[in-house]
């Protein structure tokens, strides 16, 4: 492992590409995080304070509350899918470019050895 002195960290933070990566990533991450947390807490709040809504039957005996709980799974999976798509198409490329220029040892790319 190379020592940390081999890299000029301050120079990288001044690199406009790093700044752009940082800015885009932060907005994206915290935005997704806020959406997920709010959507999650709607479930216990709804179950506690909007029981009349949760009791409405919409699909045979299946009610709004049950569908809402199931939708929590869908939303968590969709958030994961949106994030990993954006990260692998966008953030990873930018990070790799930045790394490639400031050191001769680029970061390891996806190929994992795996256990035998």
């Amino acid at each position, binding site marked *: 492992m190379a020592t940390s002195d081999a*890299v000029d960290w301050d120079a990288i933070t001044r690199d406009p590409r790093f700044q752009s990566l940082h800015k885009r990533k932060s907005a994206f991450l915290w935005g997704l995080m806020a959406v997920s947390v709010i959507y999650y807490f709607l479930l216990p709040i709804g*179950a506690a304070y909007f029981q009349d809504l949760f009791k409405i039957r919409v699909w045979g005996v299946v009610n709004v509350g049950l569908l809402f709980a199931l939708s929590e799974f869908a939303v*968590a999976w969709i958030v994961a899918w949106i994030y990993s798509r954006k990260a692998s198409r966008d953030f990873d490329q930018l990070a790799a470019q930045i790394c490639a220029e400031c050191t001769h040892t680029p*970061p390891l790319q996806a190929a994992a050895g795996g256990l035998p």
Partner: protein
Amino acid sequence: MSKQTITFLVFAVVVAITMYVTYVAAKRVRSVSDFYTAGGGVSGWQNGWAIAGDYLSAASFLGIAGLISLYGYDGFMYSVGWLVAYVTVLLLIAEPCRNIGRYTLSDILAYRNDPTKVRTVGAISTITVSTFYLTAQMVGAGVLVKTLIGISYETSVACVGVLMLLYVLFGGMVATTWVQIIKAVLLVTASIIIVLLVWTPYGFSLPAFLKDVVGDAKVQARVAALLGDSSKNMSASELGQRFLEPGLYFKAPIDQISLGMALVFGTAGLPHILMRFFTVPTAQQARKSVVWAMVVIGGFYVLTLFLGFGAAHHVGPAAIAAVDAGGNMAGPLLAQFIGGGPDSMLGNFMLAFVSAVAFATIVAVVSGLVLASASAMAHDLYVGVIRHGKSVTPQGQVTAARIATLIVGALAIGIGLAAKGQNVAALVGLAFAVAASANFPCVLLTLYWKRCNTGGIVTGMVVGTIAAVGLTLVSPNLTYPKAVKAAAHKVLDGEAARRAAVSAALGASDEKAASQAKKELAALDKNVAKAKDDIAKWGDTNTSFMGLQEPMTQLKNPGIISIPLGFLAVIFGSLLFRDKRAEDMWNEVYVRQNTGLLVAPPTSH
């Protein structure tokens, strides 16, 4: 073949497979990085399944299916938080952890802070969280294995402990990873088979399946029993439908929100989960592993909907609660029913298979926990703090790790035996609360806030842990003898009047009323016996373990107070004890966590 023989054979096969894996793994564990992180050579999907295996404890496998079978909707709602927790892990924690850390949670904290101080508090917190979780698992293991296969509590705890020690001691993280993967695959397979058998008769229609559940007399009787007097004017179909509506289990909304916070933020601070991200070579693989874990864990919880409601319909809530009051036997009993019932060979095979999976589940979770505690003890405390990272040879580090494993393993068995008969349900909640209030604020802020420093980490760890543990100690989760005795006296005072009323009904000519009265009389006798027991048991004791007559707070889970306190403590501590070095190193930390520059390559084998 007798039931015992079938059970023994199925268990033997599962244990033999994991033992073989450990044997193979043991030959590969040479360096200290092999022992703690499988040399960083685990791939994304493997790690995803291992995370699922590490996370889906007996509490979630047996417990959530049980809660759904006994309380309907609320049980299912409970399962949601366990999946949403991984959104936090995915978005904020997994990749930076991979890029900054090496073996333990404290590695992340120590990166730009005073290693001695930070490693000490980090290790203490890791050991605290893991011990709470471990105690709950060991006691759960003892009770479950005893119920499932009929060996004594002590033997069960010893078996789980010895097996786990064999895996971790010889195979380190390599064996632990594979035991967790095998367990997760077995768990998902078993669940899919049962769900297919339960759901196929309805042509895979959700409303048709649930219509049968709410139309079931056993389910309706359960709802009527839960609601008590308020259910008097409800029709049978209204009672059944009520099973799919919220409010049968969770009574105080604030408790639920507090528990939700502990789950959603606590998972990202669980040392044995964080440790899994050091086993993959890159941030990309860490990301991939969380996505895999979310697919497996979420898919499993959707299946529990069918396991729980299926058990309520086929076995019946009363029969489930009769075997285990917490509903833990819902899944295994459903498997037995689906296979043809207690007298059929297939039914008993299914019961044995699900029991073996539950056993593997506990052993896999316990292995991960022991490894996390042992790494905190050996890597952080011994190598990092006592020896200051110097003069410990790689071989010496492996030996230290193995000795720490032995110590933690022996402690786990000892605690498991000592805690026999204790109510440990609150302990898992407490583990999540400490992780969310101490570990999570520290890890998050050291990764994302420039001014975070040693003072903040130490303050945050101490305040977060004390707040979570302290609030739990004064919460209604403890037993308050005064209230217990008051309730018991009330039962005894009302006994004579009640007995007279029931005895009058006993002589009624209506056969149905008479048999109902008979049942009530038996229940009354049982309650009276319990009340007398309680009064004798508590004698002159009027206060709880903490010396309180009544709980100081009504909060069952401290999260909603202790999590904000933890964050405030890190912020104030950091601002109070300014540290120029921590701020100077911020650029390095931030570039590293975002780009993965200079991450150590995986060891090749």
